[in-house]
């Protein structure tokens, strides 16, 4: 029983931790792209990577102040969105999907390559760029705080606080945009581009704005991740993260302001709870070790999440916050 409680507490930390923030920001960005505008961006992690490395390279390589690094990260995300969008947004949705997934993998491989090592640190990445930010914390960042059975360092708490403020701000931004006429145009583009063109809207410009906005939000996710871990390593930014963010978005409900946020929190909770819980059950002998060893747990938890998502899509296709009527319209 105490094992279970312990697993619950650790999962609770994941629920509020920096990874949940990371996925929440990725998914909020994807929600702008996919949920509202209908853009299939399979390379969201690339935006996170340029965001994280924007800070890392600016601070530890170029010696710029931290906040300039943040600006560099945002700018890099804008440039990336323009590069991806300019050639593809005039084409069908599939082309953006192809280009973004290729770009995200390609960019990661370039960042970890030997020739890029002088700038990006190659496979070892960069570190020691978050000092200025951690120093801003109003409490002692070296001290360890015990909250509800979990241990947080002061730095973690600070990043989590700022991270959740960012998530809140971006959620408010998305909420305000999507209830405005701008949001109406963007949602209409998701439904049918040609109809929107025939009504005198510059579809290309709207898609580009949405791509940039979602990309910048994703870049902030990468910054939170890099600042919390204190290092930026290209291989942290695997494409699988994009798809986990999609899973979080669909879990919470696409085209809903809070869908991606709650979805990410629950996704991280389930992953962590399955991990700690299964390990506890194996060590207790509840699960015989012939059936499952603790080394399998890391994979099994994703299987559990997959089964959970399948059940969700069968019984609640709109996700947690979605509107069933709205989702069912597609089936007609």
């Amino acid at each position, binding site marked *: 029983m105490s094992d279970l409680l312990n697993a619950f507490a650790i999962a609770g930390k994941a629920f509020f931790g920096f990874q949940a923030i990371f996925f929440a920001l990725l998914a909020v960005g994807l929600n702008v792209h996919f949920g509202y505008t209908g853009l299939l961006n399979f390379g969201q992690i690339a935006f996170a990577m340029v965001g994280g490395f924007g800070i890392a390279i600016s601070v530890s390589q170029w010696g710029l102040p931290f906040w300039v690094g943040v600006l560099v990260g945002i700018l890099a995300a804008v440039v990336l969105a323009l590069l991806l969008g300019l050639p593809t947004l005039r084409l069908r949705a599939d082309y953006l999907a192809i280009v973004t997934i290729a770009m995200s993998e390609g960019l990661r491989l370039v960042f970890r390559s030997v020739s890029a090592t002088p700038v990006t640190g190659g496979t070892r990445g960069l570190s020691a760029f978050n000092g200025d930010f951690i120093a801003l914390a109003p409490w002692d960042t070296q001290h360890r705080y015990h909250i509800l059975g979990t241990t947080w360092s002061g730095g973690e708490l600070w990043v989590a606080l700022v991270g959740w403020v960012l998530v809140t701000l971006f959620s408010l*931004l998305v909420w*305000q*945009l999507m209830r*405005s*006429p*701008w*949001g*109406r*145009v963007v*949602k*209409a583009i*998701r*439904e*049918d581009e*040609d*109809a*929107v*063109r*025939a*009504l*005198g*809207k*510059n*579809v290309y410009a709207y898609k580009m*704005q949405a791509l940039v*906005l979602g990309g910048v939000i994703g870049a902030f996710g990468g910054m939170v991740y890099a600042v919390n871990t204190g290092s930026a390593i290209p291989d942290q930014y695997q494409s699988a993260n994009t798809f986990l963010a999609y899973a979080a978005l669909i879990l919470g409900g696409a*085209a809903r302001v809070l869908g991606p946020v709650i979805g990410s929190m629950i996704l991280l909770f389930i992953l962590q709870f399955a991990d700690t819980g299964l390990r506890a059950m194996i060590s207790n002998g509840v699960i015989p070790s012939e059936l499952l060893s603790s080394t399998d747990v890391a994979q099994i938890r994703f299987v559990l999440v997959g089964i959970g998502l399948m059940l969700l899509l069968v019984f609640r296709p709109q996700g947690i916050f979605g509107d069933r*009527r*709205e989702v069912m*319209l*597609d089936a*007609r």
Partner: protein
Amino acid sequence: MPAEPAAHGAHAARPDEPPAGSAPASAGTEKAAPRRLAQAALRDLPWEIGVAKPDPTVVVDGVTRTFGGLTAVSVDHLEIQRGGITGLIGPNGAGKTTLFNLLTGFDQPDTGTWSFDGRSLGKLSPHQVARLGVVRTFQLTKALSRLTVLQNMLLGAQGQRGESFLRALVPGTWRRQETENTEKAMELLQRFKLDAKSDDFAGILSGGQRKLLEMARALMSDPQVVMLDEPMAGVNPALTQSLLGHVKDLREEGMTVIFVEHDMDVVRDISDWVVVMAAGRIIAEGPPESISQNKAVVDAYLGAHHDAPLTVDDEDRVLAEAEASIAREGHPDQGVISSDRPHPRRTDR
């Protein structure tokens, strides 16, 4: 840039109207005295391909579009009379929809120029054409399913401040305009009898209601030219009548209507001028009554050697021809007026 008010077209058409019996263009004169200015203006024109209209709004010159070896559209010259309803008919694959796509910027031609009110529309993208006041609907209705009916309507409004990214963040800059647009949208929805559905998703509407919504949405932009691609396709007969009424209303408000239709009864009923296309070319032009007598048209529809026994449709056509010739004998100086009378509807089938 917002479109000009709809009434503009009506004023422009005024010089051509007959001196007697002219009522104001606005104010629901729909049933009382339909003013068919365009018909009057077009009355004395020769029934020739590419004939110059007294007051053209859309002019097409030498437009060709080929897909590989297939020439989809090859139009030498075409003028569309302002304030009138021009029917565009032709067998399947005649190039009607392609011509629509070219005129509205959804497709670019290989050669040719075309203009709207003297302004060239070549190289303009679809949204720029729409902003000039030329809106279109689609053959396969494009209701925006996961938006409500009202949101669909509001999307049609032009010059919305809240549609810019930065101003969208400051509701004060667009809230009043939004309220005005909502009022206008509800009025239009009432006219199209969709007001009860304003908060429903457009995706749950029936096919006919979607056609109505698409037309109403197009009207939100205060267009000067409305291009309807098969507005009656798949709509039940009762709703067809109401749609027809709405199309006639557009003319009463001074808009120019160009529509593609297959139902000859509909075409005869509402058009002032009919353009017939086949295999990408315009093969005939004239008032609706002239078309069924045209040998090229009959050949295009039925094949050059149609010796088969008459079908109900053919009987109707023959009947219409007879009527038209009787009408012409009765009024040799006026050409044909029979379409002003209600057309004898088929009772059986």
